[in-house]
């Protein structure tokens, strides 16, 4: 019984994850419509069986636009987290393992980046470099590096004091091997907790920045750019913004929930965090 209850959310989340992946790679399998198809007879059409979320100002199927927007959304999420990991993980390992001056310096840099509110930092950088997908991924990655760094650093500090690391040291195992063979694999659990949370932040920041015109720009389709376009139709076609915002909220919430779930699996005593 308990196993069934534990497995249910995992089944739901993996189905949603699969759906997201298909939307990103083969969107044509999920919708018969094309996201740029203009249909003057269907302008702002109400939801119906053929258009479950209705049509937008150009008569395009809203669901199709949401599905086709997934690709860029996923690229931003995964790209920023991956980029942040490439820098954050090695720095965290080094700082946590060696301690001392290098730890102090890296920690101060990380704290400095953390003290920039992400949106403000994004505004500053976009003002300099201009709005593009690449800038967005870069800004998010930059903001995520200290978050991954702090996690890995803390984990490394704990693991470094454990017997298996100390024995490896006493055996003369090379430091690089100790870091990547003994310490890194044992930080995966907590990393799996923070990654979906960061992806949720990425979805929300993407939406926010696109809304103020500093994120992904139309005609490129992302959920943020759709939210920006749909903001003019809250009165005339409320299902349009509702559908786009609802999907965005659902995606972010599912990501946060799956982080919680991973957290419960890593540390059964703690349900949240």
């Amino acid at each position, binding site marked *: 019984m308990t196993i069934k209850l534990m497995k249910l959310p995992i089944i739901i989340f993996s189905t949603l994850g699969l759906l997201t992946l298909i939307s990103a790679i083969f969107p044509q399998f999920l919708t018969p419509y094309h996201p740029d198809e203009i249909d003057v007879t269907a302008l702002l059409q109400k939801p119906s069986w053929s258009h479950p979320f209705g049509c937008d100002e150009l008569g395009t199927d809203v669901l199709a636009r949401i599905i086709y927007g997934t690709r860029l959304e996923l690229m931003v999420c995964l790209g920023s987290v991956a980029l942040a990991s490439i820098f954050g993980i090695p720095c965290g390992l080094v700082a946590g393992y060696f301690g001392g001056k290098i730890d102090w310096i890296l920690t101060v840099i990380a704290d400095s980046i953390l003290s920039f509110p992400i949106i403000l930092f994004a505004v500053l950088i976009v003002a300099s470099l201009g709005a593009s997908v690449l800038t967005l991924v870069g800004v998010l990655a930059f903001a995520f590096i200290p978050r991954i760094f702090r996690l890995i650093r803390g984990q490394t500090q704990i693991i470094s004091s454990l017997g*298996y690391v100390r024995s490896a040291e006493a055996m003369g*195992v090379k430091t690089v091997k100790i870091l990547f063979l003994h310490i890194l694999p044992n930080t995966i659990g907590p990393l799996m907790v923070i990654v979906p949370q960061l992806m949720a932040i990425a979805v929300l920041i993407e939406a926010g920045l696109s809304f103020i015109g500093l994120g992904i720009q139309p005609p490129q389709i992302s959920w943020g750019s759709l939210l920006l376009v749909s903001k003019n139709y809250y009165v005339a076609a409320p299902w349009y913004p509702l559908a786009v915002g609802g999907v965005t909220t659902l995606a972010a919430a599912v990501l946060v929930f799956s982080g919680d779930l991973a957290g419960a699996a890593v540390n059964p005593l703690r349900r949240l965090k």
Partner: protein
Amino acid sequence: MSEIILDIKKISVIFNKMFFGRSQTIKAIDNVSLQIFNSETFGIVGESGSGKSTLGNAMIGLQTLSSGEIFYKEIALPLSGTKDWMRLRRQLQIIFQDPFTSLNPRRTIGQSLAEPIITHNLCSKNDVTSKVLSLLDQVGLNSNMAERYPNAFSGGQLQRICIARALAVQPQLIICDEITSALDVSTQAQIISLLKDLKLNQDLSLVFISHDLGLVRNIADRILVMYLGRIVEIGSSDIIFSDPKHPYTQALINAAPIPEPSREAARIKTPLFGEIPDPQNPPSGCFFRTRCNQVHDRCLIETPALKQVKKNQFVSCHHTEVH
């Protein structure tokens, strides 16, 4: 006496901890000198906070010294990264207290045991597996255990695996840092007898660190008693147990139960009173004076030096001169 393999010369270890913006200094080891001989078992006894584990780590070069030197057969223990470091890693090994965190949970037992063999190129690649199996056999474990992960084992089995891993490089000296304190009593006995057997089979010195006097008496040839980072008494096991000179050693031995009901009942119990002092603010003079039942004025001012009282017994106490 046989050959000296480890010569510890006046070492001190000082920890500087930043706590709440204030720095605190703790002298974990205070001016300790001693020698370890070839194929002996050397026991180190003390309460928690006495610096015995730090001393164990220092002995094999895992702890940076604040002052003093340690020589392994004329080679000064080098810092990690130097050429001698790798050579010494084959000679000096350590086993830790908690068997559950001593093996990487994400690697199989076989992988963990193969690591020292591969690191030091102890045999050709094809022979690694057979070497791992013979190690498991040596500590009395089944060969089918090599495929499993640490979570499949009990504490006693894990500790055997840790012993096998330490033996893999065929070291001269193994530090056993409280290796039985996480185990239940029956398992403790098995581990101790395993260590004794292993010692009979090879040319090996053991340093056995424990807070359990009974265990140490059972296994050690010589014993060191530590208190707040200083040597209290050091000497051969028989002499120390039959005729302890330092009031602290006397109290420890008195506190240990005797596994014989009639003698246990007759035992004069003079328990230690008080708590071990705060290592940041140790008492002046003799560190033990706050709990000693024979204090006089001199103990408040002067730190007692380590003096020989018998052929194989050294004590640091002002009272020993009276004897």
